[in-house]
């Protein structure tokens, strides 16, 4: 089907983008790759008056080394993230999760920032961002601010972004040398996650020194599995301690029920997949 009519703006600077969004008010939508927005427009599930396309903002693409962290431009495509050597070396969890996003066509058009701002609970990138304690760098009419992932995701498809905010960078603290895995469960290859688990652990001399675990689609926002993390730290990186820790994966979650999985099955999957993610990560 054909989208309802809208005005199209393609600013060449972030300031211009913020200005355009401010002028358009509540009825504007940011186009940041279009892998979710375009289908929604075509199905006429949304009918914004103005679409502000960020694809001309080359300053928002690419991965930069910023000391203890990486700065990933919001308009960096999934394909670029997947192939970036800095991401590979310092944010392996993100590279692995990005591998699981949809299909190659989508990964060539969709962007990291677009996926985070869209905040689909079944999307694959919010959970790794949360697990890695990423920070969102946001520019709005009042200037630049940074919001941690733990505060960025508010509800289904809802973030702290105001209608005239632009997500410009994602700051990802380096987890150099950590083991990681993203365990995704779905029914067909290119689909969203029914449940997925993002796990990163730092193992020192066979003992788990630090652990980060976050869950995809176990609630309206990505959820940090703090209980699992607590149970892992200080334990040997063995199957036994992983199984014990994974049993706590569904604690504090609020999974939805849909045709693919009811809440009971999702909670069960969270435990099983957490065990598998950790096992694969540490090679136990």
């Amino acid at each position, binding site marked *: *089907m054909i989208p309802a009519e809208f005005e199209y703006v393609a600013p060449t600077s972030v300031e211009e983008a913020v200005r355009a969004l401010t002028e358009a008010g509540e009825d504007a939508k940011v186009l940041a790759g279009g892998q979710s927005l375009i289908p929604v427009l075509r199905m006429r599930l*949304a009918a914004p008056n103005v679409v502000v396309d960020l694809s001309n903002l080359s300053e928002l693409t690419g991965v930069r080394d910023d000391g203890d962290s990486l700065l990933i431009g919001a308009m960096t495509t999934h394909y670029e993230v997947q192939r970036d050597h800095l991401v590979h070396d310092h944010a392996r969890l993100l590279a692995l999760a990005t591998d699981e996003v949809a299909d190659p066509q989508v990964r060539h058009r969709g962007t990291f920032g677009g996926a985070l701002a869209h905040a689909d*609970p079944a999307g694959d990138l919010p959970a790794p961002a949360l697990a890695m304690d990423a920070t969102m760098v946001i520019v709005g009419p009042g200037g630049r601010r940074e919001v941690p992932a733990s505060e960025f995701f508010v509800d289904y498809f809802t973030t702290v972004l105001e209608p005239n905010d632009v997500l410009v960078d994602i700051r990802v603290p380096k987890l150099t040398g950590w083991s990681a895995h993203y365990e995704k469960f779905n029914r067909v290859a290119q689909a*969203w996650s*029914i449940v997925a688990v993002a796990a990163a652990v730092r193992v020192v001399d066979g003992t788990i020194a630090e652990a980060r675990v976050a869950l995809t689609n176990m609630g309206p926002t990505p959820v940090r599995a703090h209980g699992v993390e607590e149970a892992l730290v200080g334990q040997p990186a063995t199957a036994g301690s992983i199984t014990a820790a994974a049993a706590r994966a569904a604690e504090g979650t609020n999974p939805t029920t849909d*045709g693919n999985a009811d809440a009971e*099955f999702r909670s069960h999957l969270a435990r099983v997949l957490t065990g598998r993610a950790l096992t694969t990560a540490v090679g136990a």
Partner: protein
Amino acid sequence: MTATAEPEIGRARLRKEDARLITGDTRWTDNIQMAGMLHMAVLRSPMAHAKITSIDVSAAAAMPGVLLVLTGDDVAEEQGSLPCAWPITEDMLAPPAPSLAVGEVNFAGEGVAVVIARSDHEAHDALAAIDVEYDELPVVLDMKAALADGADLVHPDLGTNKSATWVFDSAEAGTGSDVDRAIADAEVVVTRTFRQQRLIPAFMEPRSVVVDPGGGSITMWSATQVPHILRWMLSAVLGIPEHKVRVIAPDVGGGFGGKLQVTPEEVLTLLVARRLGKPVKWTESRTESMLSAHHGRDQVQELTITARRDGTVTGLKVDLLADMGAYLRLVTPGVPILGAFMFNAIYKFPAYRFTCVNVFTNKVPTDAYRGAGRPEATFAIERMMDELAVELGMEPMELRRKNWIEHEEFPFTTVCGLTYDSGNYEAATDRAMELFGYDELRREQAARRESGDPVQLGIGISTFTEMCGLAPSRVLGSLRYGAGGWEHAAIRMLPTGKVELITGTSPHGQGHETAWSQIVADRLGVPFEDVEVLHGDTQSSHKGMDSYGSRSLAVGGTAIVLAADKVLAKARTLAAHLMECSESDVDFSSGRFSVRGTGTSTALTDVVLAAHVAHNLPDGMEPGMDAESTFDPTNFSFPHGTHLCATEVDTETGAVKIRSYVCVDDIGEVVNPLIVEGQVHGGLAQGIAQALFEEAVHDESGTLTTATLADYLVPTAADLPHFTTDRTVTPADSNPLGVKGVGEAGTIASTPAVVNAVIDAVRHLGVEDIEMPCTPMRVWKAVHRGRERGVPTTPVAAGGLGSIDAQGGAE
């Protein structure tokens, strides 16, 4: 058979139509542009059952670019009732089937108004401005509830939700004994109920119609698989003289039975084009297609099988409920009846009774979908054979061997009265088991059970047959089908020796242009490249019954052979005349006539030219070398095969992975092995899709919740295993090519092989059935509640655009 140096039949040629299809260098219906062409959009009911209390179109009619807005009341007289060509019983109940709802809607997705505008987007913009008020009526969704006393009614005027009851009883027909007696006398009785979920054909090219009403007659282009039937039915429904209607099916991108239809939109596009005197186009969106194009399957099947303790089957009783949806479309009522003759399958049942009750619900009408009746039958009997094997403690393949028709017993008349002409179930099965490594997989299965491996292995069998090549007109008539089963072909021998073949079949992805060229080239000894196949236009291809039911080769291909033989017969007479010899001394080989025992010869092309110029013809011979033939088969064809599937079932997550899939099909002789391979792969994908992935789900209000391809899970290559395919060749006796048909075999055979394998993997955990599709949640719940018996089921929608609710709206 005459032949070129290298026989064309049997050659794995690349398809000649693919270059234009793959590169887009073709005209799909939606690509057609005409000067002054207008666009139609359809407003569809969001309600499954409601009275329409008012429709206000004034705002829509005033919108930019809008020429006309019509409601059901505006076309009530003119639109007639959509045709149902298969009244299965004399007392079948059929409600009027309007193209645009008049006064009430009976399924969500039914058209209530149309907008015609200068552009597609203006037409769609105006839809939003139409104000319809509905008064909701009770929604009927469940077939059993629909038949209960005091049930809410889909069509109150009919007084019941039951459309028809159709019965075949072998004792009454004299083709077998009494099944009640068999049950009473049985040593072993097994009864099971299976659910055939509702499926959506999901062809890739959405439906599209263009109508040009200019020049005193009407030309319709439609993405249809039945241009000839469509022309006939349009004329019958709308009262337009048939000779004033031309229907063209240009290149059509898939059908799977989903385009075997006379659609509301075809009628409406024609009506508005005629009213406005301008060409009009309608093309659907994907969601519109899923909401309103006919669906497939949707049956509840209760089977009782009886046997002796030694495994010999003694009787089979089948009771079906078949969901018609809200209306009877072209062959809706007949689809389950096509399965009536296939539940007994390859087995020697002495007693059989089949009863089918067709039921109305407030859902999209069902109709033909790849296999149409036969996948349902094959699924049920192959699942039952596994259940019976468990009950008897027999190896499931041994049980089948004990009961199937042996090679020496052909031709074999079944308990339904069909005569299977040929087959060799032993050969196909032996080959399949060898390729599969059956015994080794059974050993691995035992080891995994022993060790309590969280990933269990299951082996599924499907030893199927099907009836296709639809088929003898007399038999179709006896089943009250409204048309014949013959097919037509004409050959035009052009003066330069090139050949135009006109076929009444209507390809929509099958590769007829290639295969038909091979048959003609082989028969006439002309180069493959010199044959052009004309199809799908009722003006050039004036006579035909179109493509469905794996009929095109077995019936249409035979018509080609007969037409070619007529060309050759006449050419031989003329060749003898030209070479001044007796016709009986003329041999034909590789496109040349030669006088036996001499060096004299002449090419067919020279004979054709001589016939064309007509300077020197025998007395009484007409000029030209064209010929045509219409073939009406005397029997169906009966492809068969053995499909074996090994699944790995993850008992911790319920995930099913197909570890290996082997099929050995016997489809008789093969014209093009590459096309056959493609048909088998596609068929397997579609059958596996029913087993594991696809399901049309309605919520309690009757809204289809799987109306996008993100919710309705059509698997891709990434979700499917490598297929090991092979063939045995037992030629069909019913046609001169010895072919049987392959369009539906993979779909018919594969579903039970996969489900049997899933159940086999977890049966030792107390599971005896899992509803299709066997989703991870259903499998996991079956395993974890298996011992309690009776696994609860939940409708499955796949979650949509991520978490976006396609029905509601994204934030």
